[in-house]
């Protein structure tokens, strides 16, 4: 690990600069010390000189300019280069004697008047930028009277290093200058581990990693590094724990999201309307079927409480048992209700949080359209009632006749013959009813398979008409067969088709007027063949037309009722034709007659047959 070169240079320059500054400061201090020492020396000299001179009698002091007076002696005797002047002035300031260094003009300045200030020193600043002069002065007193002042001036020493001191100063500067790089290297050696650590940390931060910092250090720094590394380890383990926790959380949230979306897609694809109510009773989920079954859009109910949107008071009070403000039911229940013409079965299932003592977290509400089942049940009940009635009617007649035969009336020959005929008719009626019902049941449940065979339509229809018309001719009816010479062969279940055509012909006879006509015809319509049974009977009203193919439907009209029948014949015809992939049509004018048409495809099995 090294310091960065830029950093190192900066550090080096800083050190050199600091060394120079230190040298400069030291030199400055040295010079200042020199000046102070100088000043002190001057003061000692000055004070002692003025004191010494002031004790000399004035007569000797003021000896005239050309004489070797004490001032001249003083000047020569002392080698102070700062010496500026020495002068004796009378109290009025007139110069009595004077010596001055070369180039020095003795300043004429009055001395203080008060006796206490006669002895002292003062700094005389030069007006023209020359060096200031420190002047020491003392009074010359003779016979208790001031006769003169002695003034000695020294040039104020400046900040200068004496030439003689240069080697010492230089040596010191050199020492300092040499010490700087040494201290730089020493410092650098001390700082290096820190720099290493710094760089390491920087790289770790850049790489966003947490690893122990490897530094070569000793002492406190090594201890610091060790503790720093332990702290890093701790941080690292905490980070790992957090990261694994985060991964677990992420995984479980993904699982949860998956489960939620799976649950929602399950609920969405249910054939039932599904609503999920939360603890507050507000709708938190509603699938698309809600619109079809409950008449409200999923968006409209979202977040709403049931009372806010449900149009049905029974539903509201039922769901209040689960999501109301009062105590709530913990077991599922169902409610059957009629809403918008549909029969609905609404189930409420409390959603209990898994685990023991789980809290109820909401309610799942499923609404199912049971209209078909409801109608089926009702139809079933009606069917059973019809069957019972239809079976019991002939049984009743049989029972009554047989009972009468056993009594006194049975002794009558005429009654016995009548009874035998009635019993035979009723047994036939019963038998045909049972057969028809069995045929319908087999066709409806798909247990009967069509035994298709090639049938020549012309011959087939002729046979059927011949068999049926025998009874009809007795009643004075006229029969017509209108089949083209060339009829296409049909691929049908011959026996079932015989039952169908037979039933239509039987009806045409039964409901005809006494001198009426029954016409059986066929027509080739290209892809299909039409078998037509036309009569001149009582006809079918438009109201009846919608229902005559329903099982057990009987006309309410007296003229129809009078002719008997169990209401299954046309239902069976329709079932047979549809099993062949065909259809039945009826056209009629009440009072004039009817035409029933069986439309059969020439080839191919129907979807219904294929089941």
């Amino acid at each position, binding site marked *: 690990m090294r310091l960065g070169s830029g950093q190192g240079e900066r550090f080096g320059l800083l050190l050199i600069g600091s060394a120079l500054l230190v040298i400069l400061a030291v030199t400055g201090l040295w010079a200042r010390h020199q000046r102070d020492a100088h000043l002190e020396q001057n003061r000692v000299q000055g004070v002692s000189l003025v004191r010494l001179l002031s004790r000399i009698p004035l007569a000797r002091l003021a000896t005239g300019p050309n004489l070797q007076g004490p001032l001249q002696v003083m000047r020569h005797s002392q080698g102070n280069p700062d010496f500026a002047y020495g002068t004796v002035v009378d109290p009025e300031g007139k110069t009595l004697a004077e010596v001055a260094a070369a180039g020095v003009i003795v300043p004429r300045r009055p001395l203080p008047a008060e006796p206490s200030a006669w002895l002292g020193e003062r700094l005389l600043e030069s007006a023209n930028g020359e060096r200031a002069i420190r002047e020491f002065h003392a009074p010359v007193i003779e016979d208790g009277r001031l006769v003169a002042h002695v003034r000695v001036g020294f040039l104020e020493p400046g900040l200068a290093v004496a030439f003689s001191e240069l080697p010492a100063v230089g040596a010191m500067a050199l020492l300092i200058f040499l010490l700087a790089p040494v201290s730089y290297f020493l410092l650098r050696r001390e700082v290096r581990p820190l720099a290493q650590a710094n760089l390491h940390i920087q790289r770790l931060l850049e790489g966003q990693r947490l690893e122990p910092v490897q530094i070569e250090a000793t002492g406190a720094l090594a201890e610091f590094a060790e503790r720093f590394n332990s702290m890093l380890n701790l941080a690292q383990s905490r980070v790992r724990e957090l990261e694994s926790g985060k991964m677990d959380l992420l995984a479980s949230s993904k699982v949860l999201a998956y489960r939620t979306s799976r649950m929602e897609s399950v609920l969405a694809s249910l054939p039932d309307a599904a609503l999920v109510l939360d603890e507050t009773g507000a709708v938190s989920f509603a699938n698309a079927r809600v619109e079809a079954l409950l008449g409200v859009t999923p968006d409209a109910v979202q977040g709403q409480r049931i009372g806010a949107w449900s149009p049905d008071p029974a539903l509201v009070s039922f769901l209040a048992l689960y999501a109301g403000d009062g105590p709530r039911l913990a077991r599922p229940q169902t409610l059957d209700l009629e809403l918008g013409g549909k029969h609905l079965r609404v189930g409420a299932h409390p959603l209990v949080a898994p685990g023991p003592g789980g809290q109820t977290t909401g309610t799942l509400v499923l609404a199912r359209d049971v209209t078909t089942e409801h109608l089926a049940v009702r139809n079933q009940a009606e069917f059973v009632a019809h069957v019972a*009635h239809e079976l019991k009617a002939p*049984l*009743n007649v*049989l*029972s*009554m006749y047989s009972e009468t035969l056993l009594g006194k*009336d049975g002794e009558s020959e005429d009654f016995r013959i009548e009874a035998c005929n*009635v019993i035979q008719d009723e047994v036939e009626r019963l038998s045909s009813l049972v057969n028809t019902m069995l045929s319908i049941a087999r066709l409806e449940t798909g247990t009967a398979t069509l035994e298709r065979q090639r049938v020549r339509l012309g011959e087939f229809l002729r046979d059927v008409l011949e068999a049926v018309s025998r009874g009809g001719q007795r009643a004075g009816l006229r029969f017509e067969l209108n089949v083209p010479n060339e009829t296409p062969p049909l691929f049908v279940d011959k026996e079932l088709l015989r039952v169908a055509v037979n039933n239509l012909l039987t009806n045409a006879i039964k409901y005809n007027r006494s001198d009426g006509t029954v016409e059986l015809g066929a027509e080739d319509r290209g892809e299909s063949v039409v078998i037509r049974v036309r009569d001149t009977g009582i006809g079918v009203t438009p109201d009846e037309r919608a229902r005559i193919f329903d099982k057990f439907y009987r006309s*309410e009209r007296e003229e*129809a009722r009078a002719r008997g029948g169990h209401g299954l014949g046309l239902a069976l015809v329709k079932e047979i034709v549809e099993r062949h992939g065909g259809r039945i049509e009826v056209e009629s004018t009440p009072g004039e007659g009817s035409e029933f048409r069986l439309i059969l495809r020439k080839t191919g099995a129907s979807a219904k047959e294929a089941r």
Partner: protein
Amino acid sequence: MARILVVDDEPHVTRVTRMALERAGHEVVVAGNGEEALAALEAGAFEAMVTDITMPGMTGLELCERVRHQLELEAMPIFVVTSRVEDEFRNWARAFSRLEFVEKPLSLRRLVARLEASLAEEKATT
């Protein structure tokens, strides 16, 4: 001997019922539907009525209601012949007194016995 109205759209039924009741010594009037029955009741007095339920036009139940409410023949015993005694018939019948259901297949002997018992009861109370 009593005068009895028999209402049924099935001629075989009315034929043998008439024979049985006449042999027991009663006078029988037959009506083929509800309208005929109401007309007969308006025309003359009857001690009892036997009617089928399933008939074209007016049903037997409707006939009973009109007999009781319209003609105010509240005391006349009525025997309603039906292939099955439905719950709804029973509920309906609660509103009427002296009305009994007779289930098919009908036993003529039992019908005559019940009818005569009912007539005897009526005679005892009046």
